[in-house]
């Protein structure tokens, strides 16, 4: 079997297991939509200025929740899922079979990518129907897809990277949340960050990949200026994550 066919073969089982795990499927799919409804209900009645344009706040949340959905599907799911598989000995078992490691990991990444696409499509449709959000088309769509693919892959890589500091499965969810939740807030995913925000918040948003990724998603939905530099920052984080994962990823429980 070629590597591509092996990856497809493996992905079928990743997919089966994903949909049969009620917790992972529910949180991955229901959370972003739930947050979208809650945030727009609470905060979505006004208008905000993004990139020099005034837009309806509900539209803003469609873009931000699409970004949030992708981050959950990639970073959180990979980090927590791989830690569980590592601790329960699944990874060690796979490591004793002829399946190339890269194929096994690639199947996870591709699956997360497909789930991300599906999530974004659902969020966009939901936003379009209920909040009259724009649907990206033409060049905007292509740029949007570039950011989506680069972002998903980068957050997958970071998910693999963070497993290297997670000591055991019990610690997986707390560590993942502790690393991502503050960033989601500081990057304006949950609450828009205005121009008069403290400098350290702006600074933090600019250093880490979440804001750049969310901005890229926004550009797709809102037709703002698309920053290729943002794609580069996200990609750079992905490369760093990959390097850490390649160097320190463990196939055996860390005891």
């Amino acid at each position, binding site marked *: *079997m070629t590597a591509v066919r*092996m990856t497809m*073969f*493996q992905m079928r*089982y990743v997919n*089966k*297991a994903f949909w*049969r*795990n009620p917790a992972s499927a529910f949180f991955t799919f229901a959370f972003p939509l739930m947050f979208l409804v809650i945030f727009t209900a609470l905060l979505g009645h006004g208008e905000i200025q993004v990139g020099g344009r005034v837009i309806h706040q509900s539209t803003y949340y469609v873009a931000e929740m699409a970004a949030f959905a992708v981050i959950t599907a990639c970073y959180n799911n990979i980090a927590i899922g791989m830690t569980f*598989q590592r601790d*329960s*000995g*699944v990874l*060690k*078992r796979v*490591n*004793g*079979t*002829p*399946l190339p490691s890269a194929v096994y990991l690639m199947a996870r990444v591709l699956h997360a990518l497909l789930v991300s696409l599906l999530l974004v499509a659902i969020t966009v449709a939901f936003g379009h129907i209920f909040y009259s959000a724009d649907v990206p088309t033409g060049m905007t769509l292509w740029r949007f897809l570039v950011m989506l693919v680069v972002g998903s892959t980068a957050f997958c890589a970071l998910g693999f990277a963070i497993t290297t500091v997670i000591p055991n499965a019990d610690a997986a969810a707390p560590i993942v949340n502790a690393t991502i939740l503050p960033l989601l807030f500081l990057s304006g995913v949950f609450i828009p960050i205005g121009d008069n925000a403290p400098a350290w918040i702006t600074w933090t948003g600019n250093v880490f990949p979440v804001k750049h990724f969310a901005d890229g998603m926004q550009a797709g939905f809102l037709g703002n200026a698309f920053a290729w530099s943002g794609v580069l920052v996200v990609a750079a984080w992905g490369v760093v994550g990959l390097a850490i994962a390649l160097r320190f990823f463990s196939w*055996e*429980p860390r005891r």
Partner: protein
Amino acid sequence: MVATTSAGSAVLAERLVKSYGDLQAVAGVDLRVERGEVFALLGPNGAGKTTTLEILEGYRRADQGSVRVLGLDPSSQRSALKPRIGIVLQATGVDNYLTVAESIEMYSGYYPHPRPVDEVIELVGLAAKRNARVVTLSGGQQRRLDVAIALAGDPELLFLDEPTTGFDPSARHEAWEVVRSLSALGKTVLLTTHYMDEAQNLADRVAVMAGGRIVAEGTPSTLGGREALRATIRFRLPAGVAPPEGLGEARRSDGQVDVVPDDLVETLHRLTAWALETGVPLEGLEVQRPTLEDVYLSLVGDAEPGPEHTAPGDGSAT
């Protein structure tokens, strides 16, 4: 057994050494497992069995020594070795949300010449659970699934690391049946266990491991020179009565006498003749042979010393 000498041994390890920090987990192990053989590595927890196995499986690299598994070096030729071996780890998991059949199908897909999935399921006795999700299986059934997955690629050699630890007696006997059917298929099996009876029931040959070394090796019946181990004659004497002279090494406590004779028949004859002549009753007269358990315990040295190591105590006969 069609163990062709030209094909070489399934496993050949020489002077293996592996340390973790200050702890020498494996301290110079030599091991030879022939093709088609069921070989048991027997020893208490912490004896170095798992480390030895994991070196052979390619998970660990030995600090010193040479290893050949199916003629290959497990650390430098691991990818060539992987398709030919099956591994049941001591603690291992499967995706809980897949069914038995799906799990085996998935692992079969990794191998160049897999064994048909339903044949594997039948072999480990999980046919009734074919479409059950892994999460619903009992511990014994999950272990059988582990074996099924290890068999999926139709390997020549199977490593089973403590296949029955934590099982109830009936689950253990079921697992033994599975191992016997593997050897009936002509597979080479190398298993570890800390159960004496497991080694005795399953293995063609046994090596006893303790403190990172192999302290004895042989068939279950000859292990540790068991044939050569001498029997003990045991009886009670009334207070004040000394046993006859010429019985050889004897030990006395509380009226009970243990004699370990060089020649059992001759000594027994001498003893009973003396009892008949003098009219002394030999209460509770019996002849004891060391069980395999005694041999094992004396070898690993974590229990009372066996009869052959007994220091001469008080009341030794002249």
